């Protein structure tokens, strides 16, 4: 077990020798306090930060509060003023950082005060606690100190609005999909069919009424016999006009039907006057 002890001794020696070769920065007597404006002295919260350590509890900072951090910077074991004594605040979500320099006295005693007004709006708009680290460094060989000291949470009242900030940067914009007007709707087909039945139901009623009143076509043979051509042409021209209207409804255009209707109308006029002459003849003969 001889070599074991030698190794142990050597390692102890090495660990003791390292800081001697390059001293490292650190701090002692660090306190963090929060004082509310208007409240009495000593009424606020005050914590001691362990030397070169960190507080476990987050420090709440309200809108009217002032955060004070005081510490004594040390190079190795001796208190000394460093070139850089900063309180570094970082927002964990975005990684944004900002540092506040301490005012440092020659003996290494340093203090910094911070209120909400000093914080950038990006920090005020988050709900997460900010990471507060202490940076102590200076020129030369000594190893600089950078370690988290406490978490700073912004104690916002329930009715205080969260400030928002807007930056305009070139980037992707949200997609827009046009919202179309909804298509016109038809009623259920059953209702349509019921009303069609009502419309077509008028036919049997009309036919029944006419038959009850004695409507008939008994004079048809007489009319055909006395003037066959005018009657046939007149009726078929009426049918043709309605047929042309049907074609207009389905496929023809206005300028296609106009000459056709004019032709069929002329035929109906001429043949109709002959056919009606025959009807008049029947009336004069006392047949109607």
């Amino acid at each position, binding site marked *: 077990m001889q070599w074991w002890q030698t190794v142990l001794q050597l390692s102890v020696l090495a660990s003791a020798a390292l800081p001697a070769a390059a001293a490292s920065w650190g701090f002692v007597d660090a306190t963090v306090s929060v004082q509310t404006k208007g409240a009495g002295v000593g009424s606020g919260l005050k914590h001691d930060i362990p030397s070169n350590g960190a507080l476990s509890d987050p420090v709440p900072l309200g809108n009217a509060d002032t955060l004070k951090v005081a510490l004594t910077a040390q190079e190795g074991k001796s208190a000394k003023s460093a070139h850089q004594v900063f309180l570094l605040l970082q927002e964990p979500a975005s990684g944004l950082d900002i540092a506040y320099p301490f005012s440092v006295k020659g003996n290494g005693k340093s203090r910094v005060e911070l209120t909400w007004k000093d914080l950038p709006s990006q920090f005020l708009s988050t709900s997460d606690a900010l990471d507060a680290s202490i940076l102590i*460094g200076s020129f030369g060989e000594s190893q600089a100190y950078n370690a988290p000291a406490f978490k700073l949470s912004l104690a916002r009242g329930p009715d205080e609005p969260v400030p928002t900030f807007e930056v305009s940067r070139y980037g992707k914009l949200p997609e827009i999909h046009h919202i179309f007007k909804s298509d016109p709707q038809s009623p259920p087909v059953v209702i349509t069919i019921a009303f069609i039945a009502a419309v077509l139901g008028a036919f049997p009623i009309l036919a029944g009424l006419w038959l009850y009143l004695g409507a008939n076509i008994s004079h048809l043979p007489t009319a055909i016999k006395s003037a066959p051509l005018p009657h046939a042409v007149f009726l078929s021209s009426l049918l043709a006009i309605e047929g042309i209207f049907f074609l207009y409804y389905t496929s023809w255009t206005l300028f296609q039907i106009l000459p056709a209707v004019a032709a069929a109308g002329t035929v109906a006029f001429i043949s109709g006057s002959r056919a009606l002459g025959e009807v008049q003849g029947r009336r004069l003969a006392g047949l109607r």
Partner: protein
Amino acid sequence: MRWCPSLMLFGFLAAVNALSSSGNRLLVVLEDSAEKGLYSTLWGDLEARGYNLIFESPKNEQLSLFELGDRAYDHVLLLPPKSKGFGPSLSPKNLVDFIDSDGNVLLALSGKSTTPSAVSSLLLEFDLHLPSDRSSVAVDHFNYDTLSASEKHDVLVLERPGKLRPDTKDFFGGEGVLAIPSASPHTLGDTSLLAPILRAPATAYSFNPKEDAGSVEDVFATGSQLALVSALQARNSARFTLLGSVESLQDKWFSASVQAPGGKQVETANREFAKQLTAWTFKETGVLKVGKIEHHLVKDDLTVEDLNPTIYRVKNETVFTIEVSEYAYDKYIPFEVPANDALQLEFTMLSPFHRLNLTPTKQTENSTVFSTQFTVPDQHGIFSFRVNYKRPFLTNIEEKHEVTVRHYAHNEYPRSWKISGGWVWIAGLWSVIAGFLAFVVVWLYSAPTSAADRRKKTQ
């Protein structure tokens, strides 16, 4: 046949000058010609990439950025002046005019000397801010080179920058570390045209070495608010890059070994970074070109007449395609949209009715074809297809193609028999016609009935 030699000459020139996408005349403004030797590797690299380097002193009264109203140079590389400024020919106004006429500028500063107020006012034009003493230097007690600056900590050893944002292209990344000696830091204003390329680490700060204070209590900016290298891309896509440390371009730092505290001794990647920086500034990278733009109706057999119609109807199914290439050092390559980003098409009349992500559908040898399909909104008017792609480090794409959107013609609506609600009216119409014909027949041929006879008798 006189055009033949000139065509050959043109082809030859094109082959030689095919490096930067916007010309090869590079003016290097160097006050002290003795310093030229300090940067010989940089000059060699630039010449190897096809630049025609023209060295001028700012004191030269013949020097002018413009000749007969046109740019005399394509790019300008400004090294920090020793005297009070760059002189009358390189005044802030002239340099801004140069950028306005599509010239690119790389301005290098140094923390070793006070930056002239003329340079500071030029930077203010671009919303870049120097510390008010103009002679501050960036130091970091955590990331410095222990070999060359163990006392002053002003040689920063930094990782190569990654992507600016998750949705941007990485033009400056890579392996290795950068040595940034005696950097003059700056801060960026809040404008979308500016983008930081290299920021200081969170532990860095700036201070004026001429002020002999025991500790720094009044800082200009700290941590990543300090930028060491920043880029401005103007609205005309001209580029301006501010490099805080001209020393980082020197031969000495191109091949130096550096060691961060607690780290290993490594070679710097400054040469590679300088290549990326000059290539980006002088438009060898990040240059986008739009090729063919087509829009048409969704159709199986497209003919040439179907492409890019001037009129569409509401609710037409429409396809839009755009071809985009990206210039990479010496040739155009297919453009790839960075992850988390999107090339977007807007169909606008005053405001966008549709804003859709274009998806890559085809890739040619040197371009990507992006396309999307959408239904024209149910609103008639004068619309335009717009592609407005402005991103940090990429040249702007701004395309606007106007089309008319008409409403339905009277014969394009569905016919009445297709609307089930209209069947009742159709049935009513035709039953009236059928009733009329039946009435005509009855009226023509009906014989008087006994009931009618009865009525006559009673009369």
